[in-house]
Structure formats: structure tokens, C-alpha cells
């Protein structure tokens, strides 16, 4: 994607996200606070983030791949289970993948 196209995408995405925040402040009725809407939104967040984990860890383009990212993700999961802070989790995953690749893993 060209630099200009990326800029357009950045600006549009920022505008969408800001508009969503503003709508929450402007909508007079509290229909947004309905439990079903709130619960569905929470589940959408879970689904998107979970799908992003899978896509980032196990795909390249349209191919499903198993490489150094998977053991790195396992290390991240262990760190999270041990309540490690965000940055520690991310750095441990990066280091795991980097070390495995230095050892010859794809």
C-alpha cells in the first residue's frame, strides 16, 4: 500500500473511532446502555482480538503456517497466567521467537 493510501486509511480509521466515542456522549437516550447491546459489544471485542491472535500467530498471507511464532505465543500465555505485565509478555514472546529463529527455526 502506498504512503498516501496508508495516510487516508489512518485518517479515516481515526475519524470512525472518534465518531464512535462522540456518539456515546451525544446520544441522549440510554439505549446504548441496554444489556444486550453492551454484552454483544463485549463479545465482539473478544472475537476480534481472538481472531487477531490466531491470524498474527499462525498465518502468512493466505497460508496457515506453524513457525517460531507459536512457541512464542505459548510462552506469552504462560507469562499471562503468571500475571506478568503487558510489556513483559510482549518482550518474552519476541525474544522467544528471535532465539528460535537464530537457532534455525522458520
Amino acid at each position, binding site marked *: 500500500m502506498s504512503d498516501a493510501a496508508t495516510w487516508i486509511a489512518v485518517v479515516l480509521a481515526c475519524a*470512525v473511532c472518534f465518531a464512535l466515542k462522540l456518539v456515546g456522549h451525544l446520544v441522549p437516550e440510554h439505549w446504548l446502555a441496554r444489556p444486550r447491546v453492551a454484552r454483544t459489544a463485549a463479545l465482539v471485542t473478544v472475537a476480534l482480538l481472538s481472531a*487477531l491472535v490466531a491470524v498474527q500467530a499462525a498465518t502468512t498471507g493466505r*497460508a496457515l503456517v506453524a513457525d517460531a511464532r507459536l512457541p512464542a505465543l505459548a510462552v*506469552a500465555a504462560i507469562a499471562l497466567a503468571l500475571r506478568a505485565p503487558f510489556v513483559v509478555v510482549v518482550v518474552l514472546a519476541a525474544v522467544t521467537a528471535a532465539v528460535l529463529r537464530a537457532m534455525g527455526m522458520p
Partner: protein
Amino acid sequence: MSVATGLYGVSFGALSVAAGLSLPQTMALSLLMFSGGSQFAFVGVLGAGGAAGAAIATAGLLGVRNGLYGPQVAPLLHARGWRRPLAAQLTIDESTAVATAQRDPAAGRVGFWWTGVGVFVMWNLFTLGGAVVGDALGDPRRYGLDAAAAAAFLALVWPRVTGPGARLAQLVAAGAVLVALAVTPFVPAGVPVLLAAIVAIVAGMLVRGPATTDREETDEAGDAEPDETTAGSADRPDPEGTP
């Protein structure tokens, strides 16, 4: 809290430049989008070769959460004029959690502004630091930054799928992973993540709250169960009248 959030801004800055965005584009996201989950998703989709439309849609869907926070914090803030768009921009997980955790509205107001401004400043400073470091590192794969992106998403979703009452969230997460991987070979990059969201919409519309089995038939009664106790609790408006 601001410092903790700032540190996670380092990860965003580094991952954003690793995904191919320039330093100014990375900073524009932190200044203007200012929503961690949406920002990580946006650069994640673009970095994986996804189309701009898919990246915008994914970021927007993750940003819906912030829209739902509005009705929780707006009554505390009474923001008018130029303060209102400012309050909207600062309406994120952290500021909402702090504002709604206070017993009295004045404390909630103070908590919202201090947390919102504090996180905004730290988030942007640390994004800049992360982007500069990421730029200097070069090849992202060599340093495992692609694995770091997956770990970042796992860390973001973790509090929402652990703890008591997260059963439905776990099922949705598993379904989303299966859908995303199953459709990956057949659709353009970025689309699998969007298709996975359908799992959640179907689940949210069809499934009643876990505590609804035999008590009452109404939605209100069914949805009033406490759920997602940890960080996810800020996700949902507190149902009125929950015992």
C-alpha cells in the same frame, strides 16, 4: 496506571513501524485514534497485508466499546462546548474504569480527567519511543516482532476470557479462532478477522445470560448477572438494580 499504559505504548510504537507504517502515521494513530485495541488491530491488519477497508472496519468495531462508555461517563462530566469532544476523545477503558469506580460524582469527574489526560500523554510519549526503537531495529522477523504482535493481542484479550463468568467469552474466542483460521485460505487478508466478529454478534443476540435458566424470562433479569469480573468489567455498563 498511566505509566503501565505508557509501557504498552512502547509495544504499539514498535509494532506499528514493524507493520510498515511510518513514524508520523504511527503518531497520528496514537494522537487521533487513541484507543489501544483499535490501534493494534489497525496496524495488525495492514501489516498482514489486509486492505485499508478491512483495517478501518476492524479498528471501528473495536472502537464501538468506547462509544458504549459514553453513557456511563457523560452524566458524571456534564461536559459542554469544546470540553465535550475532548471528553469523548479521552473516553477509553482506563478513564471509564476509574470514573465509574468512584462513589461520588465529583471524584468520578476528577478521576476521569486525570486518568484520561495522564494516559493520553504517556501513551503518546511511549508510542514515539517505541516507534523510534522499532525503526532502528529493522527487520521485524529477526527480532520476533511478528510474534510480539500475536502476544500483544493475547494480552489484550486475556482478562476478558479468564476469571469466573467468562464461559461464554471463552466459547466465542474459540469460535472466532476457528472461523478466522478456516476462512484464511479463501478470503483476502483482513477479512478473516471481520468474519470472526459474526460469531460474537450471533452469540450476543441469541444466547441469554448464564444465570437465566429458570428464574425469569425477561432480558433485563437475564443480563443482570455479574460477569467478566476483572478488567473486562469496565466493558459493560453496570446493569441498574443488580443486587
